[in-house]
């Protein structure tokens, strides 16, 4: 258990600048998810923290001790930071017990630590299985148990659930989360899956082109994204053009209360962000509602995402929950109302908006 602090870390591979000044602090005993699209530098960051790569500039401190800086690299085996790679990477020639015992010294192997970490990941009694006799989810759990066994100060997880199928993923994710929590480990998880990042982490750090563009608690990042790019990567978005008048925005959906990141009322015209769950679907013709046509339906079981078009052509997304109270056949008309406040952004200036997910 220790605080991990990454300061202004740069790393290039030839002409490719993978990290361009990453700052990240992971408080002791918490889990931070580093969220970013592929190619954003997630895995490079993880490998720098683990000690598999050296840093070109900046430094990494663990519990106050400097473990990485240009020319001063503590080798991975002396950092004691455990890693859970993609696909688990269990040692195929060792049984589950041998895998977990790998990082333990001879004495602690017989103190019951192996059994307790196995119980922690829900695999009590699997000590003597060989890795190839385990399912993907079980392999991943063993990899987590192996990482936790020596009480490492920090654990790094590199997209550990991406190879699992959807149903299993949620289950393994929560089990791993509770195992990490009950062991009090400081953990960093990198992922490109926003649902995973938001559901598992205490803090989410969004990585874009080798820089952390925002970090904070998941609900804060989701509801108050720092940039339109962050807004798009952490969830579905509804963007509306807006004229600002005294704390309210005039949008194609009518007047909407707005908030801004700095708290001051917006003045210049720009655009506002709504989340699909803020759009309420009511029967067509309801007073004070905007009329829209259903263009597409994504039925997802527990909810349905509707793609709609307003009468002036503006596209809007709305999430409705089962059982649906309003008929929403494709081509049919419905009424829309806005719940809560929108988030205002100034008119996009150049590159920030281009790289949508």
């Amino acid at each position, binding site marked *: 258990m220790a605080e991990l602090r990454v300061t202004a870390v740069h790393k290039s591979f030839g002409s490719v600048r993978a990290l361009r000044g990453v700052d990240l602090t992971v408080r002791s005993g918490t889990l931070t998810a580093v969220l970013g699209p592929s190619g954003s530098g997630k895995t490079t960051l993880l490998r720098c923290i683990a000690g598999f790569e050296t840093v070109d500039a900046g430094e990494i401190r663990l519990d106050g001790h400097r473990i990485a800086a240009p020319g001063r690299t503590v080798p*991975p085996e002396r950092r004691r930071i455990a890693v859970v790679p993609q696909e688990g990477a269990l040692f195929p*020639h060792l049984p589950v017990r041998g895998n977990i015992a790998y990082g333990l010294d001879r004495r602690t192997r017989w103190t019951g630590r192996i059994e307790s970490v196995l119980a922690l990941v829900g695999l009590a009694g699997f000590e003597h299985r060989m890795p*190839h006799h385990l399912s993907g989810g079980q392999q991943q759990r063993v*990899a987590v148990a192996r990482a936790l066994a020596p009480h490492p100060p920090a654990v790094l997880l590199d997209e550990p659930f991406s190879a699992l199928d959807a149903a299993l993923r949620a289950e393994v994710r929560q089990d791993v989360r509770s195992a990490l929590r009950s062991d009090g480990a400081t953990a960093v998880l990198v992922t490109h899956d926003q649902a995973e990042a938001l559901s598992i982490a205490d803090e989410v750090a969004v990585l874009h082109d080798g820089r952390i563009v925002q970090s904070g608690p998941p609900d804060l990042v989701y509801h108050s994204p720092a940039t339109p790019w962050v807004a798009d990567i952490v969830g579905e978005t509804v963007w509306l053009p807006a004229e600002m008048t005294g704390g309210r925005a005039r949008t194609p959906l009518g007047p909407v209360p707005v908030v801004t990141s700095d708290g001051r009322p917006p003045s210049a015209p720009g655009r506002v962000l709504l989340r699909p769950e803020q759009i309420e679907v009511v029967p067509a013709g309801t007073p004070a509602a905007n009329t829209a046509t259903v263009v597409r339906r994504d039925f997802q079981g527990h909810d349905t995402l509707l793609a709609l078009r307003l009468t002036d052509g503006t596209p809007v997304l709305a999430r409705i929950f089962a059982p649906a109270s309003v008929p929403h056949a494709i081509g049919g008309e419905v009424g829309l109302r806005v719940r809560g406040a929108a988030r205002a952004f100034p008119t996009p200036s150049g590159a920030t908006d281009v790289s949508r997910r």
Partner: protein
Amino acid sequence: MASAAVVRRRVRRLVPRPVLATAAVAGVCVALIPLAYLAVRVGDAGWARISEELFTVRTGELAARSLALAGAVTVACTVLGVATAFLVTRTDLPARRLFGVLAALPLAVPSYAAAFAWVSTVAGFEGFWAAALVLTLVSYPYVFLPVAAALASADPAQEEVARSLGSGPWRTLLTVTLRQVRPAVGAGALLVALYVLSDFGAVSVLRADVLTRAIFTSISLGFDPTGALVLATVLVVLTVLIVSGEQLTRRQAARYARLGGVGRPPVRRRLGRLRWIAVSALIGTGALALGVPAASLARWFGEGVSRPGSLTGLATAAGNSLTVSAAGAGLTMLLALPLGLLGARAPGPVAVALDRLAYLSHALPGLVIGLSLVFFGINVAYPLYQSVWLLALAYAALFLPLAVAAVGAAALQTPPALEEVARSLGRRRTYVLRTVTVPLAAPGIAAGAALVFLTCMKELPATLLLRPTGMDTLATELWSRTSVSAYAAAAPYAALLVLLAAVPTWWLSARTGVLSQGVQGGGA
């Protein structure tokens, strides 16, 4: 302090694994002792004397004939080896396992034993094409084994994708399947070319006038070391050309074994009416490669073992063969481990250079290695002279590349992620090497050791020169009896040699997956 750290960092960038690299350099140095001796002796002779030997029509003819023999045998082995591997692993050929074993077994027949079998069966069987035929029949397993292994483990999904994209079966074979196994074909063909260039037994028995035979002749007739050494230098130059040519055509392929995913056995093609043509072709090849030596040995065998005292001599020679081969294989693997691991884990100019250097002495004829080490033993390491260890050193110099290739391929089977995880769990590099890399590579390393052991047992000229006085092996006994046309006396030694060599050969062919199709573990 700071400057020391800077120096260390620079060294690390140039040589990523210093300990491993040092051990690898040591191994290569040992392997290069014979080559160094060659250079020293050639230098001593002086330029005038050398050019007098070098620029003659005869030297040119010998070099051209050596190259032509190597080229002909390599082409024939590639065709034969790839076709057999394809039939055995990818078609519905009947009795595939049997044919797989039959295609691997010629490895157990030393070239001089095969040549002896042919010459004592077919009257007037000698010359260039005779040597080409015999060498092809004994060395096509060098192509067959790696290609069969690669075909058995290649990802069938790639072929399926090619088919689904509208590519026909033959186009898929040419553009996808053969591309997948191209590194294996290249490695096998290189081994064959080097084997033929340095072969001495078969070309002598069959009187094919190539460089190795000329070197032997100039040593045995009047002992002309300078002439022999100049010819040996030409041989080394040809080797360098072949090795660097192969390096140029090699492309960087996907290096590591897949993680995850389920290995599926490949789809087998239906041969239809071609089936019986294929079977006849394989039976024909097997009859030539194994049937002729077997029949010939059987004919002489009865007469040979009925002679008094022959069984004791046979047992002693067999014991000696096993001892010297075990010592040779042990030393070779010890030297090969760091080299193979360096190539697999820290690829770069240093690793490539060391790997290529190790190939050099492999192509030197065993004769030159033997002579060089006699000199080395007398002048530098006298305690080793007339001991099994000097012979083991000769074997190591000769067969290091076989072992290095096996270790390298085995180490590539271990994904680097496993080593990184192990280090992140607080283990030092050496501990990780001992507990993860080596155990995972062990089956491949054992296969390399078996191959080296087998090759040591078949080795003739260096054994002749370096064995301790009075210590006869199966190979030397066979040779001394063949050279006086005592075929009956020679046959039991040849038969036992082939039988003993067949055991590791069987095991090696079992490893290619030819014998156990369908038992393919998915990656963990």
